[in-house]
């Protein structure tokens, strides 16, 4: 090699090494001591070994004002490119907090938006690791343009490729809207998300709140339901992201990866005793899910938000499925505003990405209450009806116990297009509970009768004998079959197999109007 060539190679290596150090060794060390990994370390953990191909390492900002002229910001504060997770292509952007606080300038935003276009072209998931102080103030409105490009691409990608946001540091102001437009948000313990921070809140309303209380994982999971997964640190966040990807197809035209089907499902006699005989007692529906799905491997989504409805991903004989289940242990399993929103969003995600839906029903109805009505339970509950009706993926419903009133309809009943509706023998499928029904039907007679108590009991018994069974619904063909709980897994596996090539025609339209 000629001397000049060798020098050029050396120069390239030096330049790359310098730029890859981001904000410098000192700041990288500071990132570590504050309990966070660096932007590149997060990618190294997420992606298969040596699979990362960076683009835009040499990107330069064009800001000239407020001391920015000639200032070097390596990669403009965001590492972008593509790589592989378990062998499958993904596009990634990882904000570098060590470079100007990860602030988003125009070039920074454009780099992310261009990476997203790569996702769209290749039909590969987009993963955005957030760790940024916010907009780069020195660049003025140009930095907002950068954000807006990201938001626009978020919407272009929505429903075409899965989009996952990891929030590993601050994510404040406008920046929070990119994660909000993506499909899943994984937030670490060190991260905060909010639109207006504690200082602005104090100025405007006088309320005093810490940033962790305002936008930490507890706030964004338990209170707001903005976050889908909460993790203790960056390493766990990356693991969750990988695990989530394993359930999802790369884009809306593909099927989710299928794992080994394993042997023929055996009957699980323990399932026969999972639902308590006393209709008043609750139980944990996740125990039933764990017994029905492969290897008890259930990735619950929004585990600590609206716990009355359980949603998450699992597999049955190697096929990815979305599971939606009422949780009788919380709020009696009734559907409320938050539960309806959570369920509807999950159903729509699964439908967009060809993931069949399995619904376990044990619902006494919608939650009564003034706050629910004032909060718009009609509008929110309708989202679930809309989402289920609009879903064209295989829809399988198992009624475990109660299925009453509007709740029965909303939980993917036959008439909302369920392809296969099964009921356990203890199922009670009726328009309302026996006591209330008797009150409505025999109000006058009971008011007039002297011996109110025994007549009432007789009528209630009569009503429950007639309606608190799955046989009436099965007689009306609203239930396809009544099965022994033990055979649930086998039945679901067979139904999924049979429905694998399901086709469903819908009228052409620009888009439906889900009641937002």
């Amino acid at each position, binding site marked *: 090699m000629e001397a000049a060539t060798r020098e050029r190679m050396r120069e390239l290596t030096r330049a790359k090494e310098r730029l890859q150090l981001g904000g410098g060794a000192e700041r990288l060390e500071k990132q*570590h001591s504050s309990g966070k990994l660096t932007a590149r370390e997060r990618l*190294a953990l997420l992606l*298969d070994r040596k699979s990362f191909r960076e683009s835009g390492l040499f990107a330069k900002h064009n800001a000239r004002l407020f001391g920015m002229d000639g200032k070097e910001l390596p990669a403009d504060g965001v590492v972008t490119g593509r790589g592989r997770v378990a062998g499958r292509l993904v596009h990634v952007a990882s904000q570098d907090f060590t470079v100007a606080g990860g602030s988003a300038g125009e070039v920074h935003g454009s780099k992310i938006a261009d990476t997203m276009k790569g996702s769209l072209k290749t039909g590969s998931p987009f993963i955005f690791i957030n760790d940024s102080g916010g907009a780069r103030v020195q660049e003025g409105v140009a930095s907002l343009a950068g954000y807006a490009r990201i938001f626009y691409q978020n919407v272009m990608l929505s429903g075409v490729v899965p989009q996952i946001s990891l929030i590993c540091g601050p994510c404040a102001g406008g920046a929070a809207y990119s994660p909000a437009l993506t499909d899943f948000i994984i937030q670490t313990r060190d991260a905060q998300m909010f639109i207006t921070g504690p200082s602005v809140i104090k100025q405007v309303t006088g309320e005093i709140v810490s940033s962790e209380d305002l936008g930490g994982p507890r706030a964004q999971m338990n209170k707001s339901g903005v976050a889908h997964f909460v993790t203790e*640190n960056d*390493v766990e966040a990356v693991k969750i992201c990988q*695990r989530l990807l394993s359930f999802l197809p790369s884009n809306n035209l593909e099927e989710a990866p299928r794992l080994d089907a394993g042997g023929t499902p055996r009957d699980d006699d323990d399932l026969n005793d999972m639902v308590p005989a006393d*209709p008043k007692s609750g139980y944990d529906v996740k125990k039933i899910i764990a017994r029905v799905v492969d290897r008890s491997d259930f990735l619950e989504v929004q585990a600590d938000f609206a716990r009355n409805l359980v949603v998450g991903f699992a597999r049955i004989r190697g096929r990815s499925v979305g599971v939606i289940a009422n949780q009788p242990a919380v709020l009696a399993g009734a559907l409320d505003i938050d539960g309806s929103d959570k369920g509807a969003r999950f159903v729509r995600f699964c439908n967009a990405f060809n993931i069949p839906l399995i619904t376990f029903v044990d619902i*006494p109805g919608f939650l009564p209450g003034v*706050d629910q009505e004032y909060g718009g339970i009609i509008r929110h509950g309708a989202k679930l009806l809309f989402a289920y009706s609009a879903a064209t993926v295989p829809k399988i419903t198992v009624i475990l116990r109660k299925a009453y009133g509007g709740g029965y309809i909303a939980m993917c009943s036959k008439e909302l297009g369920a392809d296969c509706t099964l009921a356990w023998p203890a199922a009670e499928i009726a328009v309302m509970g026996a006591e209330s029904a008797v009150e409505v039907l025999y109000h006058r007679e009971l008011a007039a009768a002297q011996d109110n108590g025994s007549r009432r009991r007789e009528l209630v018994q009569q009503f429950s004998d007639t309606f608190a069974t799955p046989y009436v619904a099965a007689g009306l063909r609203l239930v396809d079959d009544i099965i022994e709980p033990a055979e649930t897994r086998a039945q679901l596996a067979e139904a999924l197999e049979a429905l694998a090539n399901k086709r469903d025609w819908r009228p052409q339209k620009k888009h439906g109007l889900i009641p937002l």
Partner: protein
Amino acid sequence: MTAAAGAAPAGAWARQGRHAIQGSHELADPLARWVLEPARHAPEAGPTKRDDGLPIAIPEPVLHRRPPQRLPEDTLCRSPIAGVVIAVMVAAGQEVKCRQPALVIEAMKMENQVSPEVDGVVKTVCVAPGDAVKAGQVLFELA
């Protein structure tokens, strides 16, 4: 591994998926989820430990575990639902764990267990069996 997107044979994916992704989340207890024991999947700390399958060394502060986050209102345990208190299993001065059943409220024709969102010591119990409670009403307070 093949280079083209989606061209990897299913068998290869299945093997990788199981070992690279699921293997680290192998669940012994049917209900064990990542959220319960997150540390199980975290690698060991160490400056040069590169043979544990992770491509980078994880600095100790990243794996450092902190006490669970508490919100100011966590000390007030409120009724999630309107109903009638039928049992109170806690008393003032008693230590309680997060999600430990503390009260039973009958509502929607069901017995609903109510539990605190965080660990703590009960300061005052504000209701007794037989009381009708509204949704959002304070049931007991933690110190």
